């Protein structure tokens, strides 16, 4: 079974109104090519599930302008976002104000457990996080041995777009560095999981213990930026957004 597909073909299947999950955390471990194509296709009314919003800094990577998640909001493609944080995206905050965008917040640890539960076939998890806060609203509270917990229900999506380092054609995914973050959990919780990777290698080239997401969770493998290209993008982005100082002698 060869799961390698052309990204254009995959995005063709994505329709207005879809619920999608995106792996990554402020662009680290984020499937940038997938997002670029979703932006270019212009699909609307998305429910977007991402742990945080866009990278906090202006950078122009996509030909549409912008970087990371920001263009999805600039283009009004998102109707609802399910996240732990949206403050990095001025476009999203503006859309909230105008009533064009609904944001549903979950504490980060609850957010990831909801998705894990969705992938794991669990009916929900009980968490002490959020007790005594607005998070209690509309949720079941259970008391166990005198301690109160919120019931957080599972979360799934039609599509998950994850980012990895290497993939084989069977769909085994190896991760790299802190790019791991939300990707292995999200990979489990969608009807159709698409893995964007730096490199597609042969079956057997990934050490079984280095497989972070087993093939069973992945439906399509697409070629993303090569590692060298991705390093160039991030170097340029971090320098231009002031995150890495260029030594005076080099300016």
């Amino acid at each position, binding site marked *: 079974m060869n799961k390698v597909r052309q990204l254009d073909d995959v995005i063709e299947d994505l329709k207005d109104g879809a619920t999608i999950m995106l792996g990554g*955390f*402020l*662009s*680290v471990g984020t499937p940038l090519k997938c997002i670029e194509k979703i932006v270019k296709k212009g699909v609307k009314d998305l429910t977007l599930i991402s*742990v*945080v919003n866009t*990278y*906090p*800094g202006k950078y122009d990577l996509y030909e549409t302008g912008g970087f990371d998640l920001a263009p999805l909001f600039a283009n009004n493609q998102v109707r609802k976002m399910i*996240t*732990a*944080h*949206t*403050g*990095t995206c001025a476009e999203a*905050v503006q859309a*909230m*104000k105008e*009533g064009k965008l609904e*944001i549903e*917040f979950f*504490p*980060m*640890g609850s957010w*990831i*457990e909801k998705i*894990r539960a969705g992938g794991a076939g669990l009916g929900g998890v009980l*968490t*002490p*996080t*959020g*007790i*005594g*806060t*607005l*998070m209690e609203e509309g949720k079941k509270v259970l008391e166990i041995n005198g301690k109160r917990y919120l019931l957080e229900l599972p979360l799934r999506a039609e599509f998950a777009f994850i980012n990895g380092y290497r993939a084989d054609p069977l769909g085994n995914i190896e991760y*790299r*560095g*802190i*790019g*791991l*973050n*939300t*990707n*292995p*959990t999200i990979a489990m919780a969608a009807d159709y999981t698409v893995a964007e990777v730096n490199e597609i290698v042969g079956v057997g080239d990934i050490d079984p213990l280095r497989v*972070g997401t087993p093939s069973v969770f992945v439906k399509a493998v697409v070629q993303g930026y090569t*590692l060298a290209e*991705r*390093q160039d993008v*991030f*170097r340029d982005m*971090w*320098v231009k957004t002031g*995150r*890495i*100082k*260029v*030594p005076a002698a*080099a300016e």
Partner: protein
Amino acid sequence: MEAKDLIARRAALELADGEIVNLGFGMPTEVANHVPAGVNVVLQSENGCLMFGPTPVLGKQDADIGNAGGQPITLLPGASIFDLATSFCIIRGGHVDTTILGALEVDQEGSIANWAMPVAPGKYSPGMGGAMDLVTGAHKVVAVLQHNDKKGGSKVLKKCSLPVTGKGVLKTIITEKAVFDVTPQGLVLKEIAEGLTPETLRDVTDADFTVDPGLCRYRLPN
């Protein structure tokens, strides 16, 4: 010295050798620069690593090595990387010793508000990120904030006016004017800045507080 700088320096004294520590963004991030010599703490970045180090110099950055603020970081020898679910098992599971979090407001019941500013009726930004889990799971929660807002209003309140991040979760409150312990009997003033007395502090503080018999001058690392 600026208020923010004072606060970051004072907060560094809250960290003990060998502790697992999670620092929030803004002022708390600065705390790492002021940890006294001989105190080695293990820093967690909630997006998935333990034992990270300083920002890399140009050429040493890696596209896959960034922190929960999107900044490039380095990893120290002995570092570990894990997924977000595991990272919050560490946090919620009680494996973080101390967290230092910036606050919009704190109150005398030990509550902290730092996630929700109204942008429209019933709508808030920026979101809690990992803060609600941190205040739930960390053994010691320290809030850092400037004592007063730009108009002089107290941010150390009888009761938070904004939606809280956690109710009764604070152990210590550090402003540029004072350090309070949160106890079942309310706030106890432990340290006070140069030029202030408990009486003049009450004039700029909404919250009630008692004065510790051992009240001392606001401490800073050497």
